[in-house]
Structure formats: C-alpha cells, structure tokens
C-alpha cells in the first residue's frame, strides 16, 4: 500500500509518499508555501508523484497536516502536526523521547512515551521570537540567506546579547548592535542563542532523552549548537528534518485507510 502525507506548513509544503509493504519512502518533495495553498499543495503532490513514477490511483490514502492542513482539500483527512511529527520521528528514531520542532511560525516540544505515543506537548506560538521567523527577519536585516546565516554563527567569537522577547523590538536591538559595530557572526549566534533560551521553558526539567530536533530550522547547525548549550544536553537532528511531519502523516494514513 502507498500512502501520502502532505505537511502544509507556514513556510513550506512538504510531500512524502510511503510504501508500507517495504516500510520506505518512495517519493518526497518540497515547495514554498504561498497564498493559494490548495493549488500549491496539489502542484507539489503531482510533481512528487511524477518524480516517483506513480499515478494518483496508486495512492490509497492521503493525510494533510501542518498549519494549512484544512486547505488541502484533496486529502482524505487531517491530523495535527504534533501527532505527525511524533510519528515520523518515532519511525526514524524509535528511541526518541523528546522532540523539538521549530517551524516558521511556532515552536513545539513533544514528549513521547515508550512506543512513540505522545505523552504531552507544549507550544510557543504567541511570539515569533522563538520561531524560525526570527531567523528570517535577522537574515533579511543582515542581507544574507538562511544557510549563510547558519554558517555565519560558526565564526562568532562572542555572541551578541539579544535581550528583547519580541521580534519587532529585537530587530531594533539588532540595528543598534550593528550601529555599535557588532559583527554579523556575533549577531547571528546571539539570535540563535535567544531562540534556544526561549525554548528551555517549553522543554521542562528533567529533560527526557534522547532529544531530536526536527523541522526546517534543524538544518541550521548553529541552531543545534545553541540548543545543546541552552539545554545542557545532547540534541540530535532527525534525518531529513523538514519531512518528518509529512512522513508521520503518510504513515498514519495507512491506519486511517484500514
């Protein structure tokens, strides 16, 4: 049986096609999110099918997840991104006990029980200061793209201290820091540290490990370092972290189809 998971996030749409007989991913794709969410999801889905050499009729169940899940009308049903990320990470890393997911507009901490069942979760979605949006704002202010921002932080000697808890005010702080001569690497590292610090309260104590980091922001090596320092605990990046939500949705689709 082949099923599809579509993660319609706030920044990007991700599609995973999963073959349950062989328990493997047979297709995946990613595209920027936009205004016409339904059309963009459908285009990406078609493209992913084409690249995988599959027809629509071969896919027996589709589940949409993510912030824009209700806009994906061709999906059979929807499941929240928390449940899907948990399922996806558990499939790839069955030992996971804590999952940190930093998305474009929110951040989440998911605690898992034995067997991968979600025990509890916490979300920060009231302020962009703990989300990937913060990194985008800073990258734009520094005139670099996100991968470059991640690389910049590696060169930092003394991460800048970003004291504000609000992205809008933090941007003002960054302008001030630049005016004072702070380097771009120090600002990049300071922002990553600020995001990581905000996540500590969501994680709680004691930290149940292993901790896996997922979502697009997990591709930023500097962010992983910042999280490890803030949590004083090892943090591992989930394989293909942008796709774990879509993967979880595709795996759960089999259950729905059954």
């Amino acid at each position, binding site marked *: 049986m082949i099923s599809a998971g579509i993660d319609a996030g706030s920044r990007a749409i991700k599609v995973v096609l999963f073959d349950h007989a062989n328990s493997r991913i047979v297709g995946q794709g990613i595209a920027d999110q936009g205004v016409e969410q339904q059309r963009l999801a459908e285009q990406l889905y078609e493209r992913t099918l084409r690249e995988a050499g599959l027809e629509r009729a071969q896919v027996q169940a589709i589940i949409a997840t993510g912030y824009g899940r209700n806009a994906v009308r061709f999906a059979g049903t929807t499941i929240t991104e928390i449940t899907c990320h948990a399922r996806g990470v558990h499939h790839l890393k069955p030992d996971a006990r804590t999952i940190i997911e930093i998305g474009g507009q929110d951040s989440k901490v998911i605690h898992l029980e034995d067997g991968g*069942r979600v025990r509890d*979760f916490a979300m920060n979605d009231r302020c962009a200061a703990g989300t990937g949006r913060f990194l985008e704002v800073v990258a734009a202010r520094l005139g670099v793209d996100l991968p470059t921002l991640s690389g910049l932080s590696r060169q930092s000697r003394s991460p800048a201290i970003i004291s504000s808890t609000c992205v809008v005010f933090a941007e003002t702080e960054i302008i001030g820091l630049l005016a004072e001569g702070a380097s771009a690497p120090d600002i990049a590292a300071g922002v990553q540290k600020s995001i990581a610090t905000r996540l500590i309260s969501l994680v709680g104590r004691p930290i149940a490990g292993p901790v896996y980091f997922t979502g697009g922001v997990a591709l930023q090596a500097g962010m992983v370092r910042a999280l490890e320092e803030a949590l004083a605990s090892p943090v591992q990046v989930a394989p293909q972290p942008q796709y774990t939500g879509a993967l979880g949705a595709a795996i759960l689709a089999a259950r729905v189809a059954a």
Partner: protein
Amino acid sequence: MNAVLPQLTLEQWDARYAELVRGGLREPAYGGPLSRHVEREGDLRLRQLRFDNSAAALRLWNFLLTENERLRAARDRGDRLVGTMKDLGTVPVLAYSLPGLRAFYPDGAWWTPCLMECSDRLLQQAEALGIDASFCPVRAMLGAFHSEEHFPLPDLLVCSAGAVCDDFSAIAQRLERLGQRIVWWEMPRRRPPEAHEAVCALPGGLTAPQLQVDVVREELQRVAGALGELAGHELDAALVAPGIRAANAVRRQLAALRATVYGAQGAPLPALEMLVAEMLAVHFCSDREECLGVLRELLAEAQARVAVGKFVTADDAVRIYWVNPVADLRAMNLLEECGGRLCGTEFMFTHALDLIPEDLPPFEALARTALADPMVGPARDRARRVVAECRRYRAEAVVVARIPGASHCPWESELIRGQVHAQTGLSAVELEIPPVCDALLPTLRTRLQTVIEIARTRRKS
C-alpha cells in the same frame, strides 16, 4: 451511532424560535428571540456562537443577557443594588437574605468585550484609567463603572481583599481611587492547620485552622452590618439561615445538572451552555428565584435527553475536563467542533457550587464556605479537586484555559497540569484565550485537536 442534536447559529435560532412560538412556547417576561440582543445591546459575538436548540437553553441565554434590564427595573421598583466583587458567591447569599436588596457581580463585565466584540471599548477605557493589558480582562469592569452603560451603579460595593486575585485587588483599588466607595473585607490565605491549632472542616474536603474561619466570620458579620444598614433592616442569623437554604436550592440544582451532564455517556448539553449555567451560581444573575427556574428547566431537558439517548456530540467524543473560565465564549464551541465534550469543570468558584452547611450557625457556615474559595488557597488544593473529578467523570484529557494578564494563571496552570499528569496519566493542554480569539482560532484548534488525538490514541492502546 445516535443522530447528534444540532447546535444552532443565531440565524437558525430565529427560525427555531418562530417554530417554538408556533408550538405554544411559554416564556418569562425577559423572553424573546436571541437575535434581539445583537440588535438592541450590540452583543455581536452571538453571531459567531453555536447554541443548544432547546427552549431551556433559550431561557438560559435570555436570562443571562437581560441582567442589565433586570437590575434597572429592580431599582425602579425601589430595590437597593449591591455590587459584590471578587468573592464569587458568598456575599450574594447574605445580600439575598434581606428583602429589598439585589446583589450583582460587576466583575461579570469581563465578558462584555467578548460579547460586544470589543465595540464597547471597555478595555481601552480601563487602559485610559491606568489599568492596561498587563492585567486580567476583568479590568473591563473599570470601564463599565466609568461608562455606566452595562450595569447601573450600585448603592453599595462590597469587595474581598487579601488573599484574592492580585489583578482584581489592583483594579478594585483603582476603582476606589476614582471615587467609588467600597466596603472591603479581608480574606486570609488558607493554610493547613498547624499541630497546635483547632482544625475546621471546610466544604470540598478542605481544612483550615479555626482561627482563620473566625476571622472570616467576623468579616462577614461586618459586611452583614453594612448590608443591613443599606436595607434598613438588621441582617441577623435568623434571616441568613433561610438565605442559605435558598442558595443551597440553587446549588443542589446545579449539582444535579453537573452530575447528569458530566456523568452521561454522551453530552446532553453543550459546553457553552454548561459554562453559562455554572456561572449562575456566583450571584444568581440578579434573581435567585428565577435562576432556580432556569436551572430546573435545563436539568429537565438534560434528563430527558439522557433518557432517550440524544446528545449534542457524537458517541465517541473525547471526555474533556476543563479548568478556568474562558474570556471568549467561542472557545467552548471549539471543544465540540474538535471532537471533544465537556465532562467536568473547575471554573475557579467551586466554593459557590458546594453546599453551604445548614447544620452550623449561619455566619460560621458562610465563613467556612468563603474560605474554601479555590483562589485563596494553594494551587495544589485546586489540582487535587481536578484530579478527583477527572476520575469521577472518567476524563480522557484536561484543558487548562489561561486568562491573558491574569497573574495567577501561569504558575497555577503548570502545577495543575503536572499533578493531573502525574496522578492520572492524562494529557493536559494549556490554551490562552483572549476576549476575542478569532485570530488564534487555528492554533487553538490545533492544540485541542492534538489533545483529542492523544486521548483517542490512548483509547486504542
């Protein structure tokens, strides 16, 4: 699977109202179609809500939404009005023990910004009066006193102070500085008795040192003196005793309603109507006898539905225990939209639901009840009650609503969620709900759906 009873939009209720009238509906004087509250009072939020389709629910809503008219009519008839603030349930029992006094709850204005979708500008007025968004939305009360549009100015204001909500104390003190005379009474922080102290049992299975009960009793006697002065009639124990029995009649009715609705296999009444019904316990919505009638009709409806197995949610709806009232009523609808149903509540005034002892001297009984206020004791006492009720009503998950700006919420919420999880293994989610939560609906929906998904997964395992 049984057919689910529909919840109606305001527009659908107009058609339903016409149908009920054609069928011979008999209504109290405050009856009428729900949509008139939008047109006359500007209660715009009603357009976004879903309502139970029963005549009993119609009466409940009309009773709630006509309180301002009721108070003004009472004053015109010569009644004296008493604003009873913060204690949530005890001083109204005293006030209604005296003929010619009518107590109301100015704090109830905290729902006005929601009902009027902020067109009332009460929150802005409160900010202009020095109380900004860093305080609980109950600050709307300050604007309501200032505008005099949402309730008549009371003849006497009574407010508890001390171990009560910090936000409310600050707001009420600001109100006094603006010229409103307030009779303050002191509420000590409830603590466990020490080894050498006499122990006093309180409603809800709590205890406190007798010394604290004595302090509260004396304070309530002082309040009774002020009420008696206003009424021109001494308020003594002989008058308070029947007042307690009458209050208990309302509380018994509510207890029966809660047991019927929360204990049933399905949900015979929606979460929103249960929230409104429970709130009546605080001050009887300014008419104790009518309040009893409203609750009787609601209970009869719930019992009739249980008897025939007709419910407002699907059979497999997840049983959710809800902690704290919500600033936006829309959030209660959301619970059912996401596949949940209410199976218990702790709305911060459980001392107004528990029976007042009738076998004690009346002021002693009221003092014990007042001291059982969940807000004046440790949060672990609240958590203990939540855990017990989760077990009693077979809850599958817990929602802790957070009131933005309310200083007690952050630490209480964490403790309650922690205790619930540690003792029951249930998942507990926190939702912060502002007075109009439209912009947050997607994220609130995600959180509720997740907790429901977790509960459903637990069912299967």
